[in-house]
């Protein structure tokens, strides 16, 4: 199932390039609009990058999953003897490798636009790498819950976006601690804990939602 999902994500490479372009362009435009004040840029960069990462995942995942469902690929998954949670974990892993990792690397590469120091850039990269599995899992859960609805994007924002708050709060807390030169380890632990909790929650809820999503 893991190799299938990795291959499946690889086949979506054409759609993923537009996702990455959106993320890079949005970051570039944001850095231009914030002006040349370095202190202001450094302070606003973590929140901006995190919110853009969340939006990018929540825009791209439902589109990919909807196309797969329309083509009957979810039926194949349900008829497969593997547990649905195995499928969802494989999908999270594939999304992490094909979307999360490139987005984190892009944030790292574009961090000079926000005048971030090397320590801050490293902290930002780590927080994104820790947060992305939960973000992907939440994106997949939201997609499954809104698959058969009209205007699913709005519902997705209402249902799933609030669940990303712990990641946002603890991720930004790590960045704040780093910028103030304080010990950021406790915030890292909280970020890891909330990421793990949200991953488990999303996969469990997704396993329940998958058969209903495929009932058309």
């Amino acid at each position, binding site marked *: 199932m893991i190799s299938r999902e990795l291959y*499946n994500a690889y086949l979506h*490479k054409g759609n993923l390039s537009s996702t990455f372009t959106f993320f890079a362009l949005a970051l570039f435009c944001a850095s231009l609009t914030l002006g040349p004040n370095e202190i202001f840029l450094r302070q606003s960069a973590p929140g901006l990058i995190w919110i853009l990462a969340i939006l990018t995942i929540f825009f791209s995942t439902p589109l990919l999953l909807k196309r*797969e469902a329309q*083509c*009957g690929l979810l*039926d*194949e998954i349900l*008829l497969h003897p593997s547990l649905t949670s195995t499928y969802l974990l494989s999908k999270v892993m594939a999304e992490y490798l094909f979307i999360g990792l490139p987005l984190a690397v892009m944030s790292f590469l574009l961090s000079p636009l926000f005048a971030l120091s090397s320590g801050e850039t490293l902290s930002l990269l780590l927080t994104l790498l820790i947060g992305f599995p939960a973000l992907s899992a939440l994106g997949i859960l939201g997609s499954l819950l809104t698959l058969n609805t009209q205007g699913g994007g709005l519902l997705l924002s209402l249902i799933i976006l609030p669940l990303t708050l712990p990641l946002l709060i603890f991720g930004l807390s790590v960045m704040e601690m780093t910028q103030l030169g304080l010990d950021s380890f406790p915030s890292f632990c909280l970020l890891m804990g909330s990421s793990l909790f949200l991953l488990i929650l999303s996969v469990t809820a997704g396993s329940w939602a998958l058969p209903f999503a495929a*009932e058309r």
Partner: protein
Amino acid sequence: MLDVRNISFLPLFSNLSFSLAQREILLIHGTNGAGKSTLLRMIAGLIQPPPGTIFWKGKRIQLSTYQQNLLYSGHSLGLHPEALLKDQVNLWHYHYRVEKKAIEEALHIWGVAPLVNQKTQHLSQGQQKRLSLSRLHWLARPLWILDEPHTNLDSEGRKIFEDSLAHHIENEGLILLASHEKRPEIREICL
């Protein structure tokens, strides 16, 4: 081997019962919107059937084990929208753990092997149907559940399909077929 007892999905059908033995084909016949696809999806377990309504080899089904016995082909063809035909072969290989060679042989039989470098979404409807139905040759499952399998097939495609049905029946298979076309030679139930 397959017993369906008092299955209902209101308002489409209620208390429907039938059984299907080895070497037997059953045609679910009905007009558009009569509930044929819904019934087949329920029997395949893609819509949760009411408990105690479907029996396989005399026992109440456990979905995960029962589904390993069936091949389901519905309206959606199960082809990846972004895949070249050869990518689709790889995807099936990873998903079903079937040798690529067996899949490629089936593609030859269905006449779609020369299209390996084309995107599945760029194939004609008939070619996509042929590609999807090639599973009949490489996925060895006793129970076939086929929803409107003739749609978009030309006469040559229909001939290959009919040969596949005959071969499966010879090999002790069971076939559940939904169609709005009458087939006088096949036992049928009407919805």
